[in-house]
């Protein structure tokens, strides 16, 4: 029988489905923070090498996203937020996601090593390992602290960008890492509060499921308080300056107020206004990170004119 319908697969993947495997939205944050890490470093990098480095860091992040989609296909199929991803939607087979993830991981690490240096390639390899194995395979399903420790994977890109330029790890890159690391828990727990049943249906031990929503609200406030000194303290290093300090003071005050408002509420109040405060704090947390790194960039861009930096 030669009719094409005889062997047509109902959900055959297009090129875009493979792109979706790489989690392009997460990738955009990785590109931005890695680029800032690279540009604020005190060593200038040739534009072609800078472009290639950022591209391969993004590719590595995408590869770890594909590995995550391979491993978490069962969870993704249950959660509303993720059930349209290519693997649970039946467009890409789980094995294909694994193959894409492994192949791109290898390409990204080797090419970053050749384009920039082997320290940054090693950090990228560790990041992929950390996200795919430590976070996805181990922590995510076993502990409510999953996103606290797993957040390290998302915190590495500016450190890798810095290492591409300087070939070293220094206090500035550690502080950029710490900023994202400390920001991740309140960001995700705010999301978990209004994503209601998603995580419990999937059996993921999010803090909201294991310790309840009251405890999650307490955790958001505590982690936000711990985040503030990291974010503001970075202003007094070589990548900070008055512009960053002003931005950090304003953004952290706003974020603290948001965390305080979440802490003051209970479930009845949140249900009554459909989680308005939680949603607005989650949205603001995205701007919070973007604007902090934007301020680093502004300091570096204005330094040649004698404005940026101390």
């Amino acid at each position, binding site marked *: 029988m*030669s009719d*094409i319908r005889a062997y047509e697969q109902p959900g*055959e993947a*297009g*090129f875009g489905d*493979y792109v979706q495997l790489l989690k392009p939205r997460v990738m955009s944050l990785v590109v931005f923070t890695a680029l800032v890490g690279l540009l604020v470093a005190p060593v200038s990098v040739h534009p072609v*090498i800078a472009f290639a480095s950022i*591209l391969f860091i993004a590719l590595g992040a995408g590869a770890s996203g594909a590995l995550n989609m391979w491993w978490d296909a069962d969870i993704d199929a249950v959660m509303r937020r993720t059930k349209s991803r290519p693997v649970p939607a039946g467009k890409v087979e789980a094995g294909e996601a694994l193959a894409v993830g492994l192949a791109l991981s290898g390409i990204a690490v080797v090419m970053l090593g*050749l*384009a920039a240096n082997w320290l940054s390639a090693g950090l990228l390899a560790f990041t992929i390992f950390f996200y795919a194995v430590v976070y996805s395979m181990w922590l995510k399903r076993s502990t409510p602290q999953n996103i606290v420790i797993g957040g390290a994977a998302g915190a590495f890109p500016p450190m890798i960008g810095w290492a591409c330029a300087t070939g070293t790890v220094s206090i500035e890159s550690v502080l950029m890492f710490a900023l994202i690391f400390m920001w991740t828990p309140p960001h995700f727990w705010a999301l978990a509060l209004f994503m209601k049943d998603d995580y419990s249906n999937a059996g993921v031990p999010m803090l909201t499921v294991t310790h309840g929503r009251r405890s999650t609200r307490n955790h958001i406030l505590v982690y936000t308080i711990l985040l503030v000194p990291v974010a503001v303290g970075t202003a007094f290093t070589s990548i900070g300056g008055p512009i960053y300090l002003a931005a950090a003071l304003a953004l952290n005050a706003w974020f603290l107020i948001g965390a305080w408002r979440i802490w003051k509420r209970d479930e009845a109040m949140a249900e009554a206004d459909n989680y308005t405060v939680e949603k607005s704090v989650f949205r603001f947390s995205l701007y919070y990170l973007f604007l902090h790194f934007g301020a680093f960039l502004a300091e570096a861009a204005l330094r040649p004119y004698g404005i940026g930096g101390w």
Partner: protein
Amino acid sequence: MAFPPEHEIHKRRLGRNVGVAVTLGLFIMLVFALTVVKVTRGDPMQGFDHTVRPEMTTEEDQ
């Protein structure tokens, strides 16, 4: 029975193949650009070519 010439699956496969081709083309261009940058501004490179090059010898050799 022949395949309908413009079946939807053909378009999807064409899109996938064009996507892979464009990606590979861009990758080749990037590797070429990296090579040009590394070679033109790179460290001085010399290899053994049966010519006496005193500057390549170390103190131990001398």
